[in-house]
């Protein structure tokens, strides 16, 4: 599975939406359940699933699929 596919699955299961609604351009405002609580749950899920360490400062910058993919790339996730 590609990083995108793994991220797509993580977002889908955490926010309880069908996987195909999460695309390469999806951002938080596109998904009703990606509210502030959903985002916190997602931050935890991403951290655990990809074994990365997020800082509080990162939370605010990772509210879309593109920013998340960029971040995972910088963390060496492939």
């Amino acid at each position: 599975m590609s990083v995108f596919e793994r991220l797509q699955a993580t977002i889908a299961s955490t926010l309880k939406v069908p996987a195909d609604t999460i695309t390469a351009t999806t951002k938080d405002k596109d998904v009703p359940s990606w509210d502030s609580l959903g985002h916190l749950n997602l931050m935890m899920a991403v951290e655990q699933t990809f074994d990365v360490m997020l800082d509080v400062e990162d939370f605010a910058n990772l509210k879309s699929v593109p920013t998340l993919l960029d971040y995972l790339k910088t963390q060496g996730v492939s």
Partner: protein
Amino acid sequence: MAIQQEKFDSLLKIQSRAELREQLNSGFDLTLPQAQQLTAHARSLAPAIKPLRLGIVHTFTSDLLDTWLDHAAALEGLELNTYHASYGVVVQEAHAKSGLTLHAPDATVLLLQREDMHPDLAKPLAGFNPEQQLSLRQESLAWIKNVLLQFRAQPIGLLIVSFLPPVLPTGPGLYDAQSQRSETAWWSAFKGELAEFMRSTIQSSLLLDMDEVAAHVGRGKGFFDWRMWYSARYPFAVSAARELARRIVVPALLSKHPKAKVIVLDADNTLWGGIIGEDGMHGIALGPEYPGNAYMDFQRRLLDFQQRGFVLAMCSKNNAADVQQVLTEHPHQLLRESHFAAKRVNWLPKPDNIRSLAQELNLGLDSFIFVDDSEHECAAVRSELPQVEVIRTPAKPILVPSCLDRVARLEVLSITAEDLEKTALYAQERQRKEFQESIGAGASGGTTDMRAHLAALGMRMNIGIDDVKAVARLAQLTQKTNQFNLTTHRYDERQVRELIDSADWVVAHFTLIDKFGNSGIVGLALFQLQTKGDALLETFLMSCRVIGREAESAFLHSMLRVLKERGVKEVRAAYAPTAKNGLVAQFLPEQGFEAIGDGHYKMALTADTVKTESAFPIVVQFDTLSGSH
């Protein structure tokens, strides 16, 4: 430690929730999506999922706990319907029309912070001298006692209260334990006093010690997630959330699942290492060296479960003499003959033996927990007796002592005097049976023999009326008694207390004493006094332990005498048939009640219908009515 993909996939193939729980106990970390998948899988397993309604009142962010609460619930066969009060709203939820009360939860948990109780708790405790610390504690207790009283006045189920531990270690640091102004000592004293208040005054409640949760997962990385705490005021790291969720769901589920009463233990590789029939007394591992010391610790742990009120039984495939030798002669065997309420040591199939134990102990199979190291035996019992919960003893000796610590149904919410006496009570019963057989008043004896036997027991009955001290035991009786129970109404402690306090209800109970001992409180009758000089016998139940001694008749007629003296003219009653109470189908007619159709009965209280004390071989005494009406 993260879980390997292969291992995770195998979890999704497990078909029993008990097995799934066991696997997840091995300390794997779970990611959120993994937990969610396991939740969905656990929900789909048999038996069908049951609903559990939960209420949460909180002064810090708690919504993120939901995934873990749902997960803990699903593993125990429950689906949660959770109401979250608004952030920071506490006492406003403690009234009849609040969202919380209208939600009708089975359990309500108060997730509070220490600082909620008193503004001075936000300051260093070490800044207060001992006198000031004492008044601070009294004022804080006053706050929480008031909150608990208000919540308890509403029908919100089991009331669970918790306080978040501090984010940082104690003010005095390493010196705290020894300091005169010790914070830990202050909080221990606080919890002790709160516990006393809850035991005596707040029925159906539980103090959830969050400091214990933090100790369990580790205060540092295990408990607090500082990023979540400082950015969103949600404290919990995943390991804390999982453990806390479990400690909320487990007490709540105790009222939903059949109550566990018996732990049936295998012997070889469960109570000791090795096989007695092959290794002999000197070959089995049971002693101060590894691995025998682990098995000794497990036996020691079983004594703890006995103290919670569970009865121990044995079911082992062995020659009886071999096992007997260990029980009587092995110097490191902690569990002796007297610790087992019953035993089946033979070569018969274990499911049959367990059924036989259920009959002997007069307990339902759904109250049995079976512990065995053999996968083959566990599978046999799982498939033939699905109501029995099966725990497989770990193969690794170091894991054996704790193997029952995560079994939800082995937790208790109260411990009564009767609980502490359980095994002794079974031993007394065995002696009575033997006595009965010895004087020939067994199955072949006629009425005269039976009468002689009963008279020889020298029975005395103590009847208590509206006795507040008995609340926990009476609630327990309504929840556990299935066979000798006319209407099978279940009550929790809060409800029993209300009936006792009400002028319209008479709550009567009895204990039975004979030459072999005191049975403890074994019977309950609830009469509702109605206008026009009638009373309704709303509940009449008795523990199976004392069947066959005319205690039920003596109790009923004694209470009818009491009611007659109070001016009651007629008593109505009902029999509501269930799968388990066929035993009492004819009880009311046998006692002189007249059927009026539809399972309802009545009896006019006259000198002819109400029997005197001498009609039964039991001397009846009423406890002095202190504080009752």
